[in-house]
């Protein structure tokens, strides 16, 4: 069954009296538990697509000029703001990109996770006391393979390494048991070894919990590692889509071929 489907989405930005369309009818669909990737160069519109899905577009200057975004069959664009807020960060949540700026330096990791959980509970009309929240926070920290969840929860962000902070961000996204996880270039700010570990963790988590994952990236290596199905985006359009393996083996579009050719190789002669 389809969890999320974006149909013919168009988005424009108006600045200084000029209107520019940046998404020209983007369509994509994510089945439940599927691992998908949205790949494209900077400025191709992948982040705008992600923000439209999450409801994070700054409106104005942005404006959604056409299309629908269906989550479990309900149109996110027409539903009341209250309902939308109840979904955001709960049923659909997001792994933030930058482990340095996504955590407030003045609160401990535990403080921040508990606050987020409190807000999520409030939106869902659930009640949970402080102790239950703390228990859930420790549980999620353990899920992202923190060896000492209590110590991490009591730490300030500056006391953690980049990789650990990125795992805290993943824990943050998992707090309210989402069905769709959107990851915007996770680990870009980390070194490759740590990034590989983060991607592995993310993949294991979504596989174990049967979460749908939409990986947004410009890094084809990441796509190959984490997704079964890939959309290639260019100039605000989906230019090609298909099973990841097939797409890499037989790219149909020149743009996809260029993108694949742009990946530096460590072995063999340059083509």
């Amino acid at each position, binding site marked *: 069954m389809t969890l999320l489907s974006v149909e013919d989405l168009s988005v424009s930005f108006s600045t200084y009296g000029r209107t520019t369309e940046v998404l020209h009818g983007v369509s994509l669909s994510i089945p439940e538990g599927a691992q998908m990737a949205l790949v494209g160069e900077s400025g191709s519109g992948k982040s705008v697509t992600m923000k439209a899905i999450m409801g994070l577009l700054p409106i104005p200057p942005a404006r959604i000029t056409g299309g629908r975004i269906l989550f479990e069959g309900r149109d996110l664009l027409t539903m009341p703001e209250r309902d939308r807020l109840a979904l955001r*960060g709960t049923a659909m949540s997001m792994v933030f990109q930058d482990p340095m700026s*996504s955590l407030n330096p*003045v609160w401990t990791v535990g403080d921040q996770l508990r606050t987020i959980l409190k807000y999520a509970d409030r939106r869902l009309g659930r009640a949970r006391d402080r102790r239950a929240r703390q228990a859930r926070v420790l549980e999620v920290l353990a899920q992202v393979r923190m060896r000492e969840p209590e110590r991490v929860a009591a730490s300030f962000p500056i*006391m953690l390494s980049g990789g650990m902070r990125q795992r805290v961000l993943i824990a*943050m996204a998992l707090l309210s048991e989402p069905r769709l996880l959107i990851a915007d270039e996770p680990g870009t700010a980390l070194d490759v070894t740590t990034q590989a570990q983060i991607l592995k963790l993310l993949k294991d988590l979504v596989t174990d919990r049967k979460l749908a994952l939409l990986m947004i990236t410009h890094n084809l290596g990441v796509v190959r590692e984490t997704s079964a199905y890939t959309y290639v985006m260019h100039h605000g359009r989906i230019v090609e889509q298909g099973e990841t393996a097939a797409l890499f083996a037989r790219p149909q579009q020149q743009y996809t071929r260029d993108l694949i050719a742009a990946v530096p190789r460590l072995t063999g002669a340059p083509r």
Partner: protein
Amino acid sequence: MTTAPLSTSWQSWYRFSRNPAAVIGAAIVILCVLAAIFAPLITPFPEHAGSFVDFRNRHQPPSLTHLFGTDNVGRDNFTRVIFGLRVSLALAFVVLIIAVPLGTIMGLLAGYFGGWTEIVIMRLTDIALAIPPLVMALAVASVAEPSLFNAMIAIAALWWTWHTRLIFSITRQIRSQEYIEAAETLGASKAHILFREILPNCVSAIAVKTSLDAGFVILIGASLSFLGLGIQPPTADLGTMVADGAEYLPDFWWESMLPAAAILFVALGFNLLGDGLRDMFDVEDVK
């Protein structure tokens, strides 16, 4: 980064305690505050603080009985200096307790909301910053009656703008951080974002700025009193004492020089403390 994480507070404290200037500043400030609070208990002639006359003892040079000598009507200058500290510190306290919260809130609002809020608030600060506080206080004192209360209001009315500028610039930097975006996404209230996410990041800068400000406000208060537009006699006040004592220079130098030294002492204390806090928190925005 503009912020010192609280996690390293013990490291910060270590850095502070290893900085002799900072420790001296803190000691001076604590000493002055305690002296001001307990003035009636620690001064040898508490009754000399107000209108008291003892013409037999006028213009006595510093001695063991009168550490700072006596003034032109025979009052003990040491007593009056300590009581004068009360006035100076009260002025700084009242001005800052109005200006700091007001300036902080205005800065948070302007920095976070931007747009018209920012334009209105920041242009207002531009106007206020164009007026020197001393001139403003002089103007208020000459239109209304010269009193400590009016001086406080006049200074506070302008002083908050410095804090607004400072907090505005910090808020602008923090607003674009992803944790603010994340909080917004999750439906956190504006009050939560302003006071729980942004404000804690400003605390170190506010502490440094406030400490430095205290010294300046005391100097302005003393200047006003010197010109006869601050607190009115016979209440003991450092600026007034300097002005009155200046008539008898250079013969009875202690009557103006020692109160002046007291002003220098307390202003220096706050400045050293502020510099020490700045080094400790490693904030760069505060001038």
